[in-house]
């Protein structure tokens, strides 16, 4: 993996410019506040980066609205905060709309489509940091699930609590070395053998993400490629008009899966593939 460290670093440094505008439903000032602009890491999650946005809009919303009821939409579709920001961007815009215009809401939480972070009984259980706790818990659950695919969960099982913490804080604080010191272990693949299965989530617009068992090598030991995965997952519908984006990049379809998994996975160790129909 050593020689491709630069690629890991490039991927880690991916940023998306976002413009946050306050929903007119929640605005209490005569003229709406200006949009708030942020450069946000692709690898990160909205609950980690929204503190500044909350603070910025605090003065412009009704005092009876709760700042932790925050949620975002793009073109009317609520964003699922438990997926990495870069994945949401690729899926919803095809990587094309820059800066990404998002609407910020503090009311009418769409609890039937996205997970709620805040509780109605917040005082009693001292959940002041529940938003952060929720995303940390989602992240670590995904890391464990990814390791179940890759190593039958053996690597995560042998890690210490502090290793899990280091992965998380490395991501939150944008510390590449801190994160990769631990993540290296999760990417261990016994030399030629590769992972048992490639942990991936394939997104088609407006559909639930697809997961399947996908080996990195064929029966004859040949390297399986992105195209093999697409044929496995979308056998009936796959055609040349599909654009497959991973980390905002369209990798050639003959790229080996094992390499993709080691280098283009998100910090939760899942490879996120966004499959979009190209515009003709």
């Amino acid at each position, binding site marked *: 993996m050593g020689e491709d460290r630069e690629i890991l670093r490039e991927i880690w440094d991916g940023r998306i410019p976002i413009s946050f505008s306050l929903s007119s439903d929640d605005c209490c000032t005569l003229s709406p506040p200006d949009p708030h602009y942020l450069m946000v890491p692709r690898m990160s999650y909205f609950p980690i980066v929204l503190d500044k946005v909350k603070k910025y809009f605090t003065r412009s919303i009704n005092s009876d609205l709760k700042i932790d009821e925050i949620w975002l939409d793009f073109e009317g579709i609520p964003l*699922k905060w438990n997926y990495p920001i870069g994945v949401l961007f690729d899926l919803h815009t095809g990587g094309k709309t820059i800066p990404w215009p998002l609407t910020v809401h503090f009311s009418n939480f769409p609890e039937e*489509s996205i*997970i709620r972070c805040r509780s109605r*009984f917040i005082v*009693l259980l001292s*959940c002041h940091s529940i938003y952060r706790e929720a995303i940390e818990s989602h992240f670590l659950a995904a890391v*464990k699930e990814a390791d*179940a695919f890759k190593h039958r969960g053996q690597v995560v099982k042998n890690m210490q609590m502090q290793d899990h913490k280091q992965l998380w804080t490395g991501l939150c604080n944008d510390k590449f070395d801190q994160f990769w010191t631990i993540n290296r272990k999760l990417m261990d693949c016994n030399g030629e053998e590769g992972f048992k299965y490639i942990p991936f989530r394939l997104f088609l617009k407006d559909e639930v993400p697809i*997961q399947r*068992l996908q080996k990195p090598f064929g029966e004859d030991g040949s390297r399986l490629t992105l195209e093999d995965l697409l044929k496995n997952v979308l056998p009936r519908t796959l055609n040349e008009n599909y654009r497959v984006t991973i980390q905002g990049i369209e990798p050639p379809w003959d790229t080996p899966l094992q390499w993709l998994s080691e280098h283009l996975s998100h910090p939760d160790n899942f490879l996120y593939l966004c499959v979009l129909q190209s515009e003709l």
Partner: protein
Amino acid sequence: MISYAEFVKSCQFFININKNLEDDWREVKEDVDLTYYLVKQRCTHGHLLSSKPEKNILENDDSLSLKELESELPEDPLCINKENLDIFSIEYHIVYNMGFCVPILYFNIWDANGKLFSLTDVWKIFANLYPEILHNKWNSITQGHHPHNGKPYFYCHPCNTEKVMKFMKKHDSEEYEDVKYYIPNWLNIYGAAFGLSVPSKYCCEKNQKTF
């Protein structure tokens, strides 16, 4: 660990028994690969869910000890206002997880007004039964998107399921050998934790080897 095919086989076995017992589990099969799961909906009183098992399910001495336990518990200040919220509507799903190769129980709870419960509400309900939940909240019950319909549901993370099932196998090898018993046996543990039990009749019939 069970394969997806074994999961489906065991679910079908379970559904067939349930038909005889007039339990209300039903199968959901979508026109996409690997999307077989089971669903059950029911209404219950909140205090039944959180503090004692259903009457018709546990008819043995265990229910006595739970009743005793309940009478010893002080009135819980966290308890939800009974007048408004005593009737809950619950939906359970048994779904296969491909990474861990085990089933997961997903569920949602709504109050009498159709309001979806929050994660903290759910922690509180089940903390009445299992106080240790509050010390390990995120590892006991959490919320995630249902793999087949995409909506938010509560679930217990499956990273220990395999260990628990292995432990059970050790103690009751004959019953656990046949993979078709996997779902009923698993539900006995993971369902019971969330207000759901495998009818005792099922166990009786199974012991008589009528299936």
